[in-house]
């Protein structure tokens, strides 16, 4: 236990250091600048996260992978197989960074971290969804340009992944249709496994945007094992 004399001595030495100028108060602007820099960093981190998630949603939509789960278990497997994992990992790292950032503020650290994590995830997903799919169109954030320099991501953006083909129906032909891919190339899609145009939604017709699941045969025809019509919103 410290004696009153020892307490006084410690206080005295601190006051002497203050009065002697060895210890100085940091100016108010230092803390204002520190807070502003932290907030700016958080905002940049958040915007970058929205951009990356938006790009990921853009690639999934363009390639048609986003619609894969609608065809059942095989589609769910395909969805996870074709997820752009590098972007997923980058998004998770940015998300954790943002959670760490907000955890310095009482509104966040008073609650379990899971709440901040879910809150940021939901807000980022909604904003990314809106800027990717709604009025701004795909050119808004330059994703189209980005994908053309993205090497591996070209296949996603062009809707030409192995097993998933995205495009517009040009014409219905016997037992299939002619599909124009996003890059402008046309391919013939053949119905296999009992699929017929009337089975899909309200039936298929020229001008419909579709995603075709299936591999190309040796003649270059796409053997469709499943077809999904792309909703108007997308």
């Amino acid at each position, binding site marked *: 236990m410290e004696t009153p004399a020892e307490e006084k001595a*410690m206080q005295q030495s601190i006051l002497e250091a*203050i009065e002697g100028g060895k*210890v100085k108060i940091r100016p108010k602007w230092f803390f204002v600048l520190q807070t502003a820099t932290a907030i700016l960093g958080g905002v940049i981190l958040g915007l970058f996260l929205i951009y990356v998630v938006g790009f990921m949603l853009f690639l999934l939509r363009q390639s048609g992978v986003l619609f894969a789960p609608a065809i059942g278990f095989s589609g769910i497997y395909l969805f996870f197989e074709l997820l752009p994992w590098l972007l997923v990992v980058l998004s998770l790292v940015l998300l*954790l960074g943002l959670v760490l950032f907000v955890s310095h503020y009482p509104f966040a650290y*008073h609650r*379990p*971290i899971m709440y901040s994590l879910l809150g940021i995830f939901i807000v980022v997903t909604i904003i990314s969804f809106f800027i990717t799919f709604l009025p701004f169109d795909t050119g808004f954030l330059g994703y189209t340009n980005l994908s053309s320099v993205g090497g591996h991501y070209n296949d996603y953006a062009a809707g030409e992944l192995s097993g998933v083909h995205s495009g517009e129906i040009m014409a219905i032909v016997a037992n299939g249709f002619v599909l124009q891919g996003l890059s402008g190339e046309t391919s013939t899609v053949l119905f296999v496994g009992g699929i017929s145009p009337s089975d899909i939604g309200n039936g298929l017709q020229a001008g419909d945007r579709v995603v075709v699941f299936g591999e190309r045969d040796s003649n270059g025809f796409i053997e469709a094992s499943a077809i999904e019509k792309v909703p108007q919103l997308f």
Partner: protein
Amino acid sequence: MRETTDEEVAVAVQGGDTESFKVLMERYEPNIHRYARRFLFQGDDVKDIVQEVFIKAYVNIRSFDPNRRFSPWLYRIAHNEFVNAIKKKQKEREHTTIFDFDVLFPHLIAKETADGDMAKKELKEMLDASLDKLSPKYKEPLILYYFEEMDYKTIADVLRIPVSTVGVRLQRGRATLQKLIQK
């Protein structure tokens, strides 16, 4: 005459009244010293660390928001200093993880319990005898609750953890302590 509040004194220090800082030191030095002695390991240079707490408080006093309470702000500085001292000493792993598992998910068992005076006194005695056997993660909330007599919300502010986690750590700390004593 009404005694000036800590927050009013802190505002005076922010305005350049260095003498007022002495008032804050006189009010808090015994408490911070007691907190340090219980939280830090024997052999740590408690006096130097406490001195560093007050120097840091003075240097950063303009970051204190007078609309909030001064006490949790000062204890937060003390907590950081103590944790750094522990890390330096024994490379404590528990405080180096990014997220503790118990701050990740919500907890149901977190209500502030009103211990009876006797129970509290007994626990304090038990704590005093066995604190060093507990890990800092459980030791610190117990010290703040039983010896510094803070409520859950203030402890949550000092440790920057959810209020429900304070309840969980107190409960687990007490349980660990009882097991240790039964041994």
